[in-house]
Structures are given as structure tokens and as C-alpha cells.
């Protein structure tokens, strides 16, 4: 019997599409409702951040890194500061390290809360979005209280942090964490056992661990595929080795596991922040660093575990007060480049779910 064939056609998802989380364009080749081929087109948000950094002193680079991955700007501050500190051999005071960990983990929680809301919204449930943003608001208030900014913090500086936390920060932070812990049951109740949610996410968009490793995918997305790899533990930085926590790992690598792993990580982060708040020592918050410090010539690569995977910065220095070359490495980029290899042979609706659970943000891809 001759095989019946329908004609393939191309459809543009983006650059302006409600579920590409920014200006990403996916050229989809479709066979009916099924996706045969995905071709991501990036670069709509390119701002030449790396080049801008080359024309600024190290201290002036910090606000630029805020724009790199704005959902977790703290991590970007942290990774750049870390790189510069290693290059110049600066010791960070202990209190500053504690404050950094608190901020980093709070920022991770905030980012995962956005993920929770946006993913649910992409799958058609509009209410979780508001819930996620509501709790995130408490964390953002804490940041605002500390550094006056809500999105681009410029808080973690080379040698320490910009300023100390105010008195009321610690009780407010405990309060916010308790609220989130309490509301976690709401989040899970809304979606975890919802039959529609399960059929939409379980077994959808399975990313094999090997594929993930091959394409440099890291972070929660890789851990959801069963790879137990967390930079906070495996390449310890700051003072993460002082706290009692463990990376969350899931085995299936489908959208549902990618979703669950974020909820797990929120819980782990809450644990870390609570320990850090309890153990917060007194002391300096910033080492003495000249604003125009000149690190010796050389190169360094520093990396942190961000909520979207490995966030790395490579700096090459010629001994001047400005970096010679800066390279930024974001987790979203690797996830987007792996997408065409496991995101095909599914429906548009599945692609939306996959895209959402990869938690790609485009500024990080385009830089």
C-alpha cells in the first residue's frame, strides 16, 4: 500500500511568541501538529556584554553582569567577583561569604518560584503564576531592603558585599522562608497530582543524560536526568561546604522531573539560608580593595551553580585595570543547543512544556 504523506510546513515560533520567554525564534518544521525539526535562531537580544566589560574596570563590570542573567543577578555578581578575587588573590571576610550565600540562595528560590509560575502558565494553568510571584515578592523585598534594587542588585562586589544587611532583615527573612515553606504544600497540591498536569508533563521531552552531558547541559535540567552533579558540592566555592544540604537528583529526565527538581531545590535552599542566618558571624563585610585594582597578568575561570546550570566567567588579564577579555558562559545557551535533539517528534504543546521546563532565559543565551 502506498504510504499516505501529508506535506510538511514551517511555522515560526517567535521572535514574539507568548511562550518563548523573550525573543527567541524557533523555526519549526511541522508534520501536521507534530514537530519534525527545530531550528533555534538566537541573537535578538545580543548586547555585547563581554565587549562592554573589556572597556571597564573590574568594579565597573559588576553592574554589567547584572544584565547577563537578570533573573538571578546575584549569581552573576558572585561569579564575576569570584573570578576577579582569584585573579588578584583577594581574601573575602567570613561575614561577607555568609551574606553572599544567603543572597545567592534567596535568589535561587526567587528564580525557581518564577519558574514554577511560568511553567504552569505555559501549560494553561494561569493561577500558579500569581502564586509564584506572590512569594517571590517577599524575597525581592528583602533584596530591596538590603541593596535598594529589586532586579539588578549590584550587591556582591569584588572583595565582599556592597553593604551590610539592616537589623530587620533576619526576622523578615525567617518570616519569608516560613511562608514559602508553608505555601509549598499549596504549590504541590495545585499541580503535583493534578491528572492533567501529569499527562502533560510525565514522559514528555525526555532528555537522556548522555545527550545532556554531550551538549554541556548542567544544573537542575541535567540533575533531573539522573546525573548527580552540583557545582556547589563538586567544585565547592564560597562556604557551601559548611552547610548541611544535598543536591536534588531525579531520574526520569522528563518535564515532570524537571519541574519537581525545582521544588526540591527550593526546599534545599531554604535549609541552607536558615543555617546561614543562624551561623552569621560578626565582622567586616568587605576586604580592602582599591576601586582601580590591577590584578597580575593571567587568566582565570570561575563558575557557580546557578538556577539555570553552570554560570561561568573567564577573565584574561594583562595586568591593567581593565580585563583584556571576558567570556560569559550561561546554562541556558547549552540547554537551547540541546533542545533540537530531544525536543522533536512531539506536539507544539509539548514543545511549550519542554521549553518552559528547560527554564531558558534569553539574555543569558544572547549575552
Amino acid at each position: 500500500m502506498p504510504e499516505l504523506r501529508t506535506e510538511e510546513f514551517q511555522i515560526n515560533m517567535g521572535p514574539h511568541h507568548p511562550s518563548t520567554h523573550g525573543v527567541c525564534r524557533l523555526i519549526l518544521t511541522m508534520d501536521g501538529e507534530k514537530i519534525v525539526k527545530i531550528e533555534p535562531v538566537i541573537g535578538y537580544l545580543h548586547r555585547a556584554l563581554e565587549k562592554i566589560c573589556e572597556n571597564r574596570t573590574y568594579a565597573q563590570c559588576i553592574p554589567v553582569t547584572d544584565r547577563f542573567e537578570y533573573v538571578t543577578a546575584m549569581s552573576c555578581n558572585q561569579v564575576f567577583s569570584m573570578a576577579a578575587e582569584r585573579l588578584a588573590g583577594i581574601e573575602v571576610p567570613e561575614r561577607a561569604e555568609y551574606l553572599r550565600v544567603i543572597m545567592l540562595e534567596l535568589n535561587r528560590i526567587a528564580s525557581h518560584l518564577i519558574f514554577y509560575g511560568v511553567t504552569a502558565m505555559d501549560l494553561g494553568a494561569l493561577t500558579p503564576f500569581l502564586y509564584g510571584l506572590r512569594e517571590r515578592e517577599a524575597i525581592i523585598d528583602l533584596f530591596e531592603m538590603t541593596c535598594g534594587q529589586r532586579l539588578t542588585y549590584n550587591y556582591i562586589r569584588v572583595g565582599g558585599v556592597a553593604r551590610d544587611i539592616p537589623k530587620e532583615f533576619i526576622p523578615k527573612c525567617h518570616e519569608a522562608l516560613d511562608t514559602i515553606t508553608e505555601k509549598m504544600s499549596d504549590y504541590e497540591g495545585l499541580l503535583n497530582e493534578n491528572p492533567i498536569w501529569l499527562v502533560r508533563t510525565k514522559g514528555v521531552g525526555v532528555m537522556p543524560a548522555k545527550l545532556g552531558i554531550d551538549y554541556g547541559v548542567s544544573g537542575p535540567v541535567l540533575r533531573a536526568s539522573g546525573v548527580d552533579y552540583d557545582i556547589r558540592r563538586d567544585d565547592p566555592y564560597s562556604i557551601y561546604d559548611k552547610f548541611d544540604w544535598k543536591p536534588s537528583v531525579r531520574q526520569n529526565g522528563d518535564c515532570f522531573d524537571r519541574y519537581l527538581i525545582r521544588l526540591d531545590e527550593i526546599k534545599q535552599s531554604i535549609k541552607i539560608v536558615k543555617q546561614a542566618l543562624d551561623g552569621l558571624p560578626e565582622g567586616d563585610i568587605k576586604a580592602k580593595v582599591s576601586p582601580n585594582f590591577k590584578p597580575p597578568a593571567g587568566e582565570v575561570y570561575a563558575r557557580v551553580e546557578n538556577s539555570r546550570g553552570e554560570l561561568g566567567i573567564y577573565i584574561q588579564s594583562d595586568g591593567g585595570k581593565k580585563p583584556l577579555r571576558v567570556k560569559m558562559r550561561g546554562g541556558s545557551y547549552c540547554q537551547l543547543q540541546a533542545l533540537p535533539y530531544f525536543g522533536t517528534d512531539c506536539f507544539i504543546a509539548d514543545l511549550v512544556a519542554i521549553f518552559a521546563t528547560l527554564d531558558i532565559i534569553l539574555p543569558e543565551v544572547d549575552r
Partner: protein
Amino acid sequence: MIWPIASAELLPLFSYLYELLESTGLPQPWLAVVVYTFLAALVFGVLSLLALFLVWWERKIAAHIQQRFGPMRHGWHGWYQTIMDAVKLLQKEDIRVATRDKTVFFWAPVVCFVAAFLAYVTIPFGEGLIVADLNIGILYIMAVTTFTVISLLMAGWGSNNKYALLGGMRSAAQVVSYEVPMVASILVVVLFVGSLSMVDIVQAQAGGIWNWYIFRLPYGPIAFCTYIIAATAEANRTPFDIPEAEQELVAGFNVEYSGMKFAMFFLAEFVNAFTVSAIAVILFFGGWHGALLPSWMWFLGKTFGIVLLLMLFRWTYPRLRVDQLMEFSWKFLVPVTFANIIIAAWFKYAGWYW
């Protein structure tokens, strides 16, 4: 035949109008035309207000589920917000894509709008508050609501846009699939009553809450559940809002529509939601029957209750995928409803009812 126009059959208001016009010596066809036009205008007006109210209500309910206030600026809790929205949409530029199919693009919202309102010819809003008690009442409603799907296909095609076309296709497949379980659920009640007329169906449930079919028939609850699922799909609401799935198809069939044309689709959607809820009330919840309050209040109250149910679905559930949606209809709903019909027929045949 057949135009049942005698003053006694009309609402009191209209029989008065009828007599008034008759006394002026207006000849027969024009008399009927005038009276029916007034009747149509009344139904249209009431329903437009209802639809506007439903939009506002949905926004408020969504807001309160989501821990916000919703519209607050226009009047008490923003009660005339949707009216202002309608005025705004009326004034907006009617953007027409250059590559559209001119006629089809123009007529799609009109067909959708008209189809949504046509159903109200046979819906009894209260005792005697019915435009025409057709003896095929429920079947008539099924017939006119099928035009909604044609209009969605027309919109998808006329826009000459791939997203719109996909939306139109999806809606056609969806509505055609869910019509089967919907009609099958309705049949269970029709089988028991032995009449398709809406008034007969409501009258058969007179005399207290235990005579409502959802409680009276042992298979009633199943029929109601299957009906409300199929009806949610028919009205294109979440979790079955595949045709306009915003995150996948941008806005599906109405992606190219703006201004008043968009408003017509939008209002028609709410009118459809009200229609399926009204049918649910008539079939399963005793229609206008109830104590103390006037019958139309009971009817509206019950219908708003069902609409509330649909809204709660919408704001708590994610959306199904298009193939899962089809599978759910053909592999689950259709067998269940058919089995339910067989059970109902057996009960009827054996005379086991009370």
C-alpha cells in the same frame, strides 16, 4: 402552519404589544414581524448584558482565586469595566490583514455571534419566559450551536495565518468530537422525559429538589458529569481551550482579529458558556423550579452556579494536549455515555423509576 403567533402564547408584555398593534389595524405579516423583532431585540439585549456581566464576573473570580482584586476603578468593584471595554473595542481600529480572504474574514465573527444567540429561542428563562417552545427544543439548540465551529473554521481560514488555521482545525476536531458525548448525555434525560421540548423537560422536574434529574435518576450524576465535561469542551474553555491556546497558538483562530470583530468572538464565547450552563440547569437541576423566589431568579441563580463551576475549572486546571483531548473523548467519554444510555434505556424499559 406554523408561526405560533397568538397573543396568548407570548409573554404578557408582548401580548399587550400585539393587541396594541392589532388595534391599529396593522396587517398580519407586518404585525408578526414587528412583534418578533421586538422579542429578538429583547433577548439580544438581555443576553448582551449577561455576557458583559459574565466577563466582569469571570475577571473578579479569577482575581480572587489569584489573590488580587481584579477591576476596581470603574464603579463599585469595577462593575462597569466591561462596558467601558466594549466601548473601547468599538472605537478601535479594525485591522485587516492584507492577505485575508475578504468575505470569509468578514463573516466569521458574524456567524459566531449569531450562532451563539440563536440558541436562546428555546431556552426558558422562567415559567412562560420562553420565546418559542419548539417541540424539538434541545435538538434545535444542538443544531444552531454547530455553526460556532463553522465560524471558527472560517476565521482560521480567512485570516490566512498558520496559527489561526491550526486553531480553526483544532476547534473543528474538538467540537465535532465532543458533540457526541454531549448529545449522548442529553439523550439520557430526553429518554426519560419522552420529549425534546425544553418546557416539557423542566415541567417533568416539578415538585421539589428530589425530582431534579440529577438526584432522581440513578444514572443522572454520571450523565451530568459527562455533560459538563463535554460542555466545557464545546464552549472552548480551559482545560479544553485548545483552539485558542495562548501559549501554543498565540491566540488561535482569533489571532488576526481586532476591535469589534474580536469583541464579537469574545462575547460569543461567554454567551456559549452561559448556554451550556443553562442547558445543564434545564436538564439536571429542575430549570426554573424552586420555592419562594420568582422562577426566573431561580433559573438565573442555578445557571450562574454552573457558570461558576466552569470558571473554577478554568482557573485551576492546566490545558490538555490536542491528542490527549481527542483520546479522552473517543476512548473514555463516548463509551461511558453510550453505556449510560443503555443503562437508562434498560431502566426505562423495565419501568424502574420513581
